[in-house]
């Protein structure tokens, strides 16, 4: 320990969140987010779960501006 570091100053050390606590949330929210991003970014483009073009046309401008491949 160097004497230079002022020993009286308390520095908070981040406490890790156990991975086993994160995992179930990560799976659930991860899947949910992927479904949402799929509908904004890719539905009725290369693949269609719903027939027609309504979803594609509705989010059309967002899809282009957010950088997804389109048309």
């Amino acid at each position, binding site marked *: *320990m*160097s004497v230079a*570091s*002022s*020993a*009286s*100053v*308390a*520095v*908070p*050390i*981040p*406490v*890790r*969140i156990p*991975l086993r*606590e*994160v995992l179930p*949330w*990560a799976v659930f*929210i*991860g899947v*949910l*987010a992927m479904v*949402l*991003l799929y*509908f*904004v*970014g*890719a539905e009725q*483009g*290369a*693949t269609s779960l719903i027939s027609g*073009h*309504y979803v594609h*046309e*509705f*989010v*059309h*401008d*967002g*899809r*282009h*501006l*957010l*950088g*997804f*491949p*389109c*048309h």
Partner: protein
Amino acid sequence: MMRMLLVRGMFAGLVAGVLALVFARVIGEPSVGAAIDFESAEATAAGEPPEPELVSRAVQSTLGLATGVLVYAVAFGGLFALAFAVAYGRIGRLDARATALVLGVGGYLSAFVVPFLKYPANPPSIGNADTIDERTVTYFLMVAVSVGCAIAAACLGRRLMSRLGAWNATLVAVLAFVVALSVAGLLFPAVDEVPKEFPADVLWSFRVASLGTQLIMWTTIALLFGVLVRRRLPADRQLAGQPG
């Protein structure tokens, strides 16, 4: 703890989405409109009948755009909270705000900018309908490779930290990411579908607007999330200089 992080992540995502939406509407929509005008003019010149509008332009550029951007931003807000839960306390001794900022910059670059360098965003009328399958697969694959390599680089940096120190370990990790993604960029197929007559300045302003929309979203999520969670995370108060 996870509930607290997720609620704040999605809230930060919502606020970020609103700001990004304002930017996209004001800065991005004019070039989308110009591109559609180009498309219509080309179709008229070729003698094709105008396509029927399934969703009107007025709806596409307001409600449709808002739905797309807000859903996207809230989803990324949730994913951001998950990434934060894993990264906090595991990337050096960064506090909550700094961890969130590092994640925001890393997320913006790896999930958007790096894939964009190979497959930039395109306005309407660019892109052959016959190649949408390949373009979709290669784009999402590029995003997956980029985010995967960013995570791998972060793990590499963490391992090297004790031997090289934080500064040099970070440099090596960043270098490894740059090399890996340069190789990936060479190996991935090129897409060259911009029509010859398409106005170059419209393409430029569209792409700048696209980069800006994402920049606003990521920085807002990172900065707001950091502020919202910093006083709610447990931290050991240790004396300075003691080993953590």
